[in-house]
């Protein structure tokens, strides 16, 4: 019997268990369900859960850990045993509701733990594969190497620094675009705009956040890249390609505008009105109030928002894959094509992979670097934002 049919059989047994448990409880109570501690449905559920859960868990485990063939049919035996045992426990005094609720609570806990399991799985898979990589390739050369020339024939140079440079350079440009625009937009919306203007502009800007990054990527590749090349890079003799740090940075900046603006908007709105009143009542203008009272008060929160945006920028993939190019190099010229950590992760892991070669495994080391960088930024940012919120609660 295939595991699929065993699963179906188990579920059928569970349905049977429900009916049996329910009818047995009614029978034992002599038809008067008021004599039962729990309502008959709970007795039914109790039997069904005890029949299905252990067996299904065993099945899933067998699938996951490639257990030998006899384990799957054993699940059926387990289901039958569960059915019998729980049925025999069904008495009028039996607290079936509490039993069922305990099981449900257990399921809830497991679901909540999936978040932790995901993080663990991320960390473990990154660390294990990276460890394999560092066995084949010295870590000093990876972290401090300035050359990135993978070749599957051997003799690859896998220095991360050019990728890190490209990542940080693009992120910097993106933030230079997004932070002033996002921040001024947020200030205008929270302190100047009338409710009507706000109700139109705020959702419009947030549409930018709902657009998938692949769309921005295509926009960079087809529109912004050629535009920057024809109007700025070529006339100034700075470059001749559409893919460049500038292209990716500007488009990524566009993507980050709503991110910065909606976070800053929340934060600026959290500054109490009494502070604004205090400042205005002393004869300061609106902008003086914002610059000298509201913004300093909101500064920690805004810094947090910018850090979150920075982490977004560092981890962004599709815009740089399509807009930045694939050349790994360290150059100060923003109109040259450079590449990033995320681009190379995609590059090394798409297509046919040999999971024993350093050229493939380096992607995991890059992933680990990326994960640590963004996690650090996120934790710092969330800490700052949380502290800020507490201040005004």
């Amino acid at each position, binding site marked *: 019997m295939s595991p699929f049919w065993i699963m179906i059989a188990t579920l059928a047994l569970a349905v049977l268990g429900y009916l049996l448990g329910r009818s047995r409880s009614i029978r034992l109570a002599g038809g008067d369900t008021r004599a039962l501690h729990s309502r008959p449905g709970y007795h039914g559920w109790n039997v069904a859960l005890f029949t299905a859960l252990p067996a299904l868990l065993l099945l899933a485990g067998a699938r996951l850990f490639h257990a030998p063939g006899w384990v799957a049919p054993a699940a059926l035996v387990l289901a039958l045993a569960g059915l019998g045992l729980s049925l025999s426990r069904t008495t009028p005094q039996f607290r079936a509701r509490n039993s069922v609720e305990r099981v449900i609570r257990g399921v809830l806990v497991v679901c909540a733990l999936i978040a932790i399991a995901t993080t663990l799985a991320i960390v473990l898979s990154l660390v294990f594969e990276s460890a394999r990589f560092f066995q084949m390739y010295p870590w000093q050369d990876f972290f401090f190497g300035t050359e990135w020339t993978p070749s599957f024939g051997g003799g690859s140079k896998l220095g991360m620094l050019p990728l890190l440079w490209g990542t940080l350079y693009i992120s910097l440009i993106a933030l230079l675009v997004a932070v002033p625009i996002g921040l001024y937009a947020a200030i205008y919306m929270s302190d100047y705009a009338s409710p009507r203007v706000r109700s139109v502009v705020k959702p419009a800007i947030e549409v930018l956040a709902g657009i998938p990054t692949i769309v921005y990527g295509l926009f960079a590749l087809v529109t912004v890249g050629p535009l920057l090349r024809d109007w700025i890079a070529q006339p100034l003799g700075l470059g001749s390609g559409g893919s460049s740090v500038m292209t990716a940075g500007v488009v990524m900046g566009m993507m980050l505008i709503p991110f910065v603006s909606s976070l800053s908007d929340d934060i600026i709105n959290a500054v109490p009105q009494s*502070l604004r009143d*205090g400042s*205005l*009542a*002393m*004869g300061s203008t609106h902008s003086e109030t914002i610059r000298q009272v509201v913004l300093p008060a909101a500064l920690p929160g805004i810094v947090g928002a910018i850090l979150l945006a920075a982490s977004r920028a560092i981890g962004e993939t599709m815009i740089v894959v399509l807009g930045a190019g694939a050349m790994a190099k360290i150059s100060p010229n923003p109109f040259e094509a450079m590449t990033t950590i995320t681009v190379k992760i995609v590059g090394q892991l798409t297509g046919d992979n040999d999971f024993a070669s350093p050229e493939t495994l380096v992607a995991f080391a890059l992933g680990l670097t990326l994960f640590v960088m963004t996690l650090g930024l996120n934790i710092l940012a969330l800490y700052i934002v949380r502290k800020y919120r507490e201040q005004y609660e």
Partner: protein
Amino acid sequence: MDDVRLAERAVDTDARDIKFQCRDVQVWYGEKHAIKDVSVDLLDKTVTAFIGPSGCGKSTFLRCLNRMNDTIGIARVEGQMLLDGENIYDRRVDPVQLRARVGMVFQKPNPFPKSIYDNVAYGPRIHGLARNRAELDEIVEKALRGAALWNEVKDRLHETGTGLSGGQQQRLCIARAVATAPEVLLMDEPCSALDPIATAQVEELIDELRATFSVVIVTHSMQQAARVSQKTAFFHLGNLVEYGDTDDIFTRPRDPRTESYISGRIG
């Protein structure tokens, strides 16, 4: 209207020292007629108390005096409010300049999240009252002394103002308002968030401020009005019911509504 006539008669007696002359002031909040036909003269170097049941318009009227109502989009003001003979609602008047001359202290202490020094120096800085650091230091010290706070904070001027106690914070806010060298000081229930001891300190301070400023205070406590003010105005449902010497209002109210209010029958 009876009460208006009464109010006018009351102010006619000492017209020489009028700081604010208000005539037929109407305020609407959207559809709501919040202030009806109020005419009152506020005197210089005097503490005037606005009393009345909550929602009577006393705070609204106070906020009109330095055009803080401008910050609420739906508020509309009609009538005349003359500060030293100039209508503050004239189109040419910049509220920024007006508020430099008519300071305000709020219900809850609202020090900026800056140092004590920067809190007080904020007004002088934006209005450019000091030519150099030494002058600014002097203004800050005078303002803090004027708010009876100097001795408590002189050793920690660069600590944050939000770390002070409630009473100290409110006196800091008064110092902040005083530092801008206003002519009128508006106070919107300045003691309602304070404990009795801090209240006593602030009340004492208000009495001292009278030497320099015209002080207008909104209060819900009749005892406080009796303690600190020389003139009292009683508001009810947006009308100015009675205005006169504080002693008269509390001992010989002319309007039955005033009498009911001070004897505790309405409120």
